């Protein structure tokens, strides 16, 4: 055979055929990836979503349950031409909506392939029933049953939290746990116990045959997985108290937190204005509305807002003074409408008789008295200088759970702020500051921030005479364990004995007859033995914030509560009745007739500042 042109051409033909066959050999026989891709193409995963755990209150009332909703799904490849008008009518949507959607599916038809897409979410059952009757006319459309959250009690959206579809960011943060289309609790209790509530997804695997029909279960269903329902959660919340708090706080900005002192269990947690539970089950639809609201309903004030504590902090200063031995209960200090701390500068006070002892100073909330107290703490001869004494003072303060996050099981809890001596030294120089520089800390003003949860915890600490259990929202129940720290007592650095003297002052603030000078007489409820402390915290952003903490009964207290109403003026005016009404409701189950007018006044008050 000569190498003439004919043979060269034939060799070329052979080479090209060989190239094709080698490539075919490599993808058909050597490379297994294409076979895997092919079986992935032919396997159909039918995801079975578990029902989410139910959230109960402390008495077994359902706070969050589940209900059935219907999603309308479309398999665009199966859709035949249909009567758009009739479908729009059955689904109660506009014709344009359906046209737009169908056009969209057509555009993405390659991506969608033979899959189904959700066209309408959470159709009410009446609509679904109407659709189901005519469904046979619309091949490719079907209803998909899904379980969605149901809220029988208005317990406030911020406390319960919402469940929504996971986004790419969330999936990345929780690697390997979620896939697009899954739902997860994003805030509140739903987020706190997401891992228990969510349950485990199941799936069935089917194989498509060569006619694209679902043929059989893959390996006779041996690889299928049953869905495991989420675990139920019992919370520490008292549904009735929570709901009552929601009502009282309507049209007010602020928060109320109630704690059972002996256990640290949070009984109620109201942040107002909050997310309406009506919106929770379909939060996506309202998301823009909520995030554009100037009152920031998403912002959970109970654990995230940091306010100056105001006069309620006088209790802490008094207790530190007693423990340090620089104050005795009988010690009297004068107050002439304030305390002159530096030349002509004066920290003002309201008119009351003078001089006062500790109990009276607490009862009448005298500013001057506690300036003397803090002065004697900081200028204690025991310590070399003010900064050193200040650090000691700060240790006391932080032992009350202030200055850093308490470590509750509620998500996104913040810690507030208690300044350190180095903070002042940085501003004024190591020896550049003394008591007069930080006089406002005497009355809980200045560089201090605490969350409402911390104030409520402070109240519980006082009620317990010196210890607290870290506040928490989930109770241990069958299958649900809680961190052992929620059983441990955290003792303050102040002895139990010292608390009695302060508590009596709180009792007198409430229970002394009107006119005796008690700041919280409006909270008095005969027989309930309420102890309380008002506060009127100056607010750099506007009118003073109204604060009140109280617990009852005086001995063996069942409830400690803190109410914080923004821009509402004196603590006695708004915070005090709200807290006392909640205590009364909780302890007696009703509001006695002679206090109905107080309740009416609160329910009808609108203290929303204009924004």
């Amino acid at each position, binding site marked *: 055979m000569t190498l003439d042109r004919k043979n060269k051409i034939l060799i070329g*033909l052979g080479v090209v055929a060989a190239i*094709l066959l080698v490539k075919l050999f490599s*993808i058909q026989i050597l490379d297994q990836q294409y076979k895997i891709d*092919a079986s992935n193409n*032919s396997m159909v995963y039918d995801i079975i979503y578990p029902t989410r755990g139910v959230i109960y209150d402390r008495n077994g009332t359902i706070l969050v349950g589940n209900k059935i909703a219907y999603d309308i799904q479309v398999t665009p490849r199966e859709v035949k031409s249909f009567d758009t008008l009739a479908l729009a009518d059955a689904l109660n949507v506009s014709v344009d909506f359906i046209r737009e959607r169908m056009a969209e599916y057509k555009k993405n038809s*390659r991506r969608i*392939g033979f899959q189904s897409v959700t066209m309408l979410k959470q159709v009410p059952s009446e609509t679904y029933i109407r659709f189901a009757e005519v469904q046979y006319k619309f091949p490719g459309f079907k209803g998909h049953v899904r379980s969605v959250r149901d809220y029988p009690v208005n317990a406030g959206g911020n406390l319960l939290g919402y469940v929504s579809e996971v986004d790419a960011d969330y999936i990345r943060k929780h690697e390997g746990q979620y896939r697009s289309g899954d739902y997860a609790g994003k805030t509140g209790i739903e987020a706190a116990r997401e891992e228990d509530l969510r349950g485990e997804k199941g799936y069935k695997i089917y194989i498509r045959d*060569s006619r694209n029909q679902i043929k059989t279960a893959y390996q006779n269903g041996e690889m299928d997985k049953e869905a495991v329902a989420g675990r139920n959660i019992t919370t520490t919340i008292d549904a009735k108290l929570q709901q009552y708090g929601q009502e009282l706080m309507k049209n007010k900005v602020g928060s109320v937190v109630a704690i059972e002192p002996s256990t640290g269990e949070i009984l109620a947690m109201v942040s107002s204005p909050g997310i309406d539970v009506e919106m929770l089950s379909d939060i996506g639809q309202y998301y823009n509305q909520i995030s554009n609201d100037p009152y920031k309903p998403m912002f959970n004030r109970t654990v995230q807002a940091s306010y100056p504590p105001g006069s309620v902090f006088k209790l802490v200063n008094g207790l530190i003074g007693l423990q340090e031995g620089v104050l005795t209960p009988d010690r009297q200090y004068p107050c002439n409408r304030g305390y002159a701390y530096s030349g002509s500068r004066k920290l003002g006070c309201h008119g009351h008789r003078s001089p006062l002892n500790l109990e009276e100073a607490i009862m009448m909330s005298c500013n001057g008295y506690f300036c003397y107290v803090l002065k004697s703490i900081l200028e204690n001869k025991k310590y070399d200088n003010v900064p050193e004494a200040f650090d000691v003072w700060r240790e006391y303060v932080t032992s009350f759970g202030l200055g850093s996050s308490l470590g509750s099981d509620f998500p996104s809890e913040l810690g507030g702020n208690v300044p350190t001596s180095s903070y002042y030294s940085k501003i004024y120089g190591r020896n550049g500051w003394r008591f007069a520089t930080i006089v406002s800390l005497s009355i809980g003003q200045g560089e201090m921030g605490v969350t409402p949860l911390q104030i409520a915890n402070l109240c519980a600490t006082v009620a317990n005479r010196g210890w607290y259990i870290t506040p928490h929202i989930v109770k241990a129940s069958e299958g649900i364990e809680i961190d052992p720290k929620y059983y441990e007592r955290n003792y303050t650095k102040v002895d139990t004995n010292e608390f009695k003297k302060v508590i009596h002052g709180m009792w007198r603030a409430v229970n002394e007859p009107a006119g005796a000078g008690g700041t919280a007489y409006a909270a008095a409820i005969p027989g309930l033995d309420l102890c309380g402390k008002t506060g009127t915290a100056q607010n750099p952003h506007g009118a003073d914030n109204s604060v009140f903490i109280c617990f009852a009964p005086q001995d063996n207290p069942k409830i400690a509560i803190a109410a914080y109403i923004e821009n509402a003026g004196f603590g006695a005016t708004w915070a005090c009745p709200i807290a006392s009404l909640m205590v009364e409701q909780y302890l007696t189950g009703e509001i006695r007739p002679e206090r109905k007018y107080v309740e009416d006044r609160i329910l009808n008050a609108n203290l929303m500042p204009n924004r």
Partner: protein
Amino acid sequence: MTDRGNRGLKSTVDWRIVIYYLLLVLIGFINIYASIHSSEPSSIFDFSVRSGKQFVWILTGIVLATLILFVFNPRLWEVISIPSYLIILVLLVAVIFVGSDVKGSHSWFNFGPVSFQPAEVSKIATSLVLATIMSKTNFKMSNMKDLLLVAAVIALPMLIIVAEKETGSALVYLGFIFVLYREGLSGWFLFLIGVIILLFILTLTTSIYTALIVLAAIASLCYSIYSGKPKRWIWADVPAILVLIFLPKFNLPFNPLYIYLALTGVQAVRMAYRSFRQRKFITFATLVAFLLGIGIVFSTEYIFNNVLQDHQRSRIEVLLGMKDDPAGVGYNVNQSKIAIGSGGLFGKGFLQGTQTTYGFVPEQSTDFIFCTVGEEWGFVGCLIVILLYVFLIYRLITDAERCRDQFTRIYGYCVASVIFMHLFINIGMTIGLMPVIGIPLPLLSYGGSSLWSFTVLIFIFVALYRQEKKYF
């Protein structure tokens, strides 16, 4: 008629070609049915679906083949070649203006239920004209006038088809270069075309600079070999090229391209002078080819960005690995490879293929019919199909070589080239060796236009060959 003229059917018709033809058509018919049966399950002979329609095309195709073999006088083809070529040119232009728009290309005439693509017929007409022109006794491939005429005959329909936006069909015309080669075209032309394609790819995937260095290396190597001084290439040109390769590694204050251009500029002047003094054609030819190469490299970027359409550009980018895009342009190829790759050695069996039925592979019964072959019949099926084509082309070429009549021989090579180009481009496309350009797989793909034109193309040759056997 002489005794020899009365030789029977048995000995005059090349039955092997007919058998390969029938086998390929049958394989096509079976696979077309398999590719559509999932979405429209029905009888294989149901005339409302593609397999039934293809059955009609096959029957009429066989009638057509019989007519060509036994009724028409084979001399007719040479006579009508030039008029039919001219008519086809007119139709090719006309279809741009009156043709219906099929996925952006204007290449189909629509007559009610029947549509017709002149580009298919033009392959036959062009083959006939080439055979007519090149079989003239005074035709010489080395004659520049003749060469230009032949080039024009090929390029004219090709360019019109590019204007119809049927780039795939136009590429097939490049195959006629093999015919020219067989008839005496210098092998350097084939080599030149190869170099041009290489430069095009290099410019796009690497850089202009790299492409130019490769060009310089090839040009100097060819020149030294041709002038009998290969050693000089090693000690003079290789070091210079190495220096140029490493130039960009030093951070020069200016583009190393300027050094390259300066060097080659000096060399070009030297060569121009030498070719003028010594009258050496090879020096002149190398110089022209080299300058042409530089021109190609610089215009590649322009052609790529301004002449090619978006979808063609992105298909080339995906093929050359410049873009990884399994969901976009690469999607078709990827799914097509999955379908073929999942077939394994023996395939999944007739109608058992899954991939082609989920609608992942587009155009399953036309351009991507090979996916169904690959999935349902596996590597063995692919091997059989490819071997059938190779046998068919081999038969065409050897038969052509046996002919004493030049017209028949040249026409036979034309047929072989057209089938070869279709085979390589189509199968190459389904397995990711070629960009996705829609041309049918001869005799297998669904469609009357395509099947008929390949039937006519092949059976004209069978008839011519029969004539040859009868009378010589």
